[in-house]
């Protein structure tokens, strides 16, 4: 038998100021809804009982995907399905295309949005580790006007984004990657292929002529209460060639400095071990040209990450 949603009023503003106003009214609890893939499930489970939802579907221009001044700009309502199919994203930001393509299932990607994914602030986000590597910025509007939050400061805590009351994510801005960058995203699931990652690892490196890392960025999902950059692992790589020993050292550092949680997908200890395994394997694959950004690369997303 079907379980109905706890009743709510649905507001459908047609501009951002109207949406900010609708969210900020002081009566009862309001929630913003984008694709609804997380929020509607939480309402169904009784975890939330908002008395009004403010939908962003009628606010124009929030689902655009384009390039402005060399940076990729994704409207907050751009869906995972649109991003994974975007030629602009696949050509210029293949790491993001690869990560977005691993989100849940095709039907969830049709509805789920990039802004919703980030605002949900789940530790086991697929796009977040990639966007951390890409040093994206989150554009926000609220009662106090507009502001730009570097993604490294956007995840404040367990399911908590750095959004104040009445604030709305409007877009994600992703700067161009360093010249000669290569990288990839691997997702390890412990239950089923379409599950959230037990551990997700994104890497973006740039090598000098001698093959040493002049840039090394590693983003982790499922490794802490929020998505994080693995700074200790990055330090272990900078100036080093991508040897097996360097990959192992970076993987050790990533595992040591992680702060994973235990849940039904796996224990903290298991997560730490899988961080060690998957950081090492991903760095090896990046070095061997098994990911995008090198002459031997396959097209983004066409390669399965398990091996």
């Amino acid at each position, binding site marked *: 038998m079907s379980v109905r949603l*706890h009743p709510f009023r*649905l507001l459908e503003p047609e501009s951002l100021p109207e949406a900010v106003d609708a969210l900020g009214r002081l009566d009862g609890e309001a929630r913003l809804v984008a694709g609804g893939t997380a929020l509607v*499930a939480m309402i169904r489970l009784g975890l939330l009982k908002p008395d009004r939802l403010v939908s962003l579907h009628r606010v124009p221009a929030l689902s655009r995907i384009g390039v402005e001044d060399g940076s990729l700009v994704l409207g907050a309502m751009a869906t995972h399905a649109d991003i994974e199919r975007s030629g602009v994203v696949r050509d210029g930001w293949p790491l993001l295309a690869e990560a977005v393509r691993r989100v849940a299932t095709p039907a*969830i990607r*049709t*509805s789920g949005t990039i802004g919703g994914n980030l605002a949900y602030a789940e530790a086991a986000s697929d796009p977040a580790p990639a966007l951390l590597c890409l040093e994206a910025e989150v554009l926000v509007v609220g009662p106090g006007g507009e502001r730009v939050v570097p993604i490294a400061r956007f995840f404040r805590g367990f399911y908590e984004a750095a959004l104040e009351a009445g604030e709305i994510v409007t877009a994600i801005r992703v700067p161009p990657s360093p010249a000669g960058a290569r990288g990839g995203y691997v997702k390890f699931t412990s239950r089923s292929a*379409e599950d959230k990652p037990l551990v997700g690892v994104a890497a973006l490196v740039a090598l000098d002529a001698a093959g040493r890392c002049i840039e090394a960025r590693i983003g982790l999902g499922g490794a802490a209460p929020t998505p994080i950059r693995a700074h200790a692992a990055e330090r272990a790589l900078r100036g080093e060639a991508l040897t097996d020993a360097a990959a192992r050292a970076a993987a050790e550092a990533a595992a040591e400095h992680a702060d994973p949680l235990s849940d039904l997908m796996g224990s903290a200890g298991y997560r730490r071990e899988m961080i060690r395994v998957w950081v090492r394997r991903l760095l090896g694959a990046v070095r061997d040209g098994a990911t995008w950004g090198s002459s031997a690369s396959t097209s983004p997303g066409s390669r399965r990450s398990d091996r």
Partner: protein
Amino acid sequence: MTLAFTLNGRPCATETPEHWTVLDLLRDGLGLMGTKYGCGEGVCGTCTVLADGRPIRACLVLAAHVRGRSVVTVEGLEAEGRLDPLQTEFAERGAAQCGYCTPGIMLAAKALLLENPRPTEHQVREALAGNLCRCTGYTKIIAAVLAVAGSR
């Protein structure tokens, strides 16, 4: 709340409570019982329908969010009294057992074939990931989808 959209190729204008999902609207508002309620959380896939040719979870999408869009349910797969090739192959190959997952699986497969008429087996498996079947073991389901792809 008034709502106008296209349902199985025909215009549909209806009244719906604001907190209803597409699944509530289809089954309880419009009496189309082919779309099934499974988990209610977007995990099992049995409520999958198409919106503008792409698969959605009817249990998670608010009815308001299909305003102006084109929705296809299992009732809309046949055309002019003729079954869709997916329906024919599922029937002839015994790809349905209890049948509860079948509407969602056929629509997930339909979405794949609309975008990619000649998918590989791997692509079929990826497209159907998240549509759970506890009877068949998937072998005949995959074979039925591949048969349709090969018959075009």
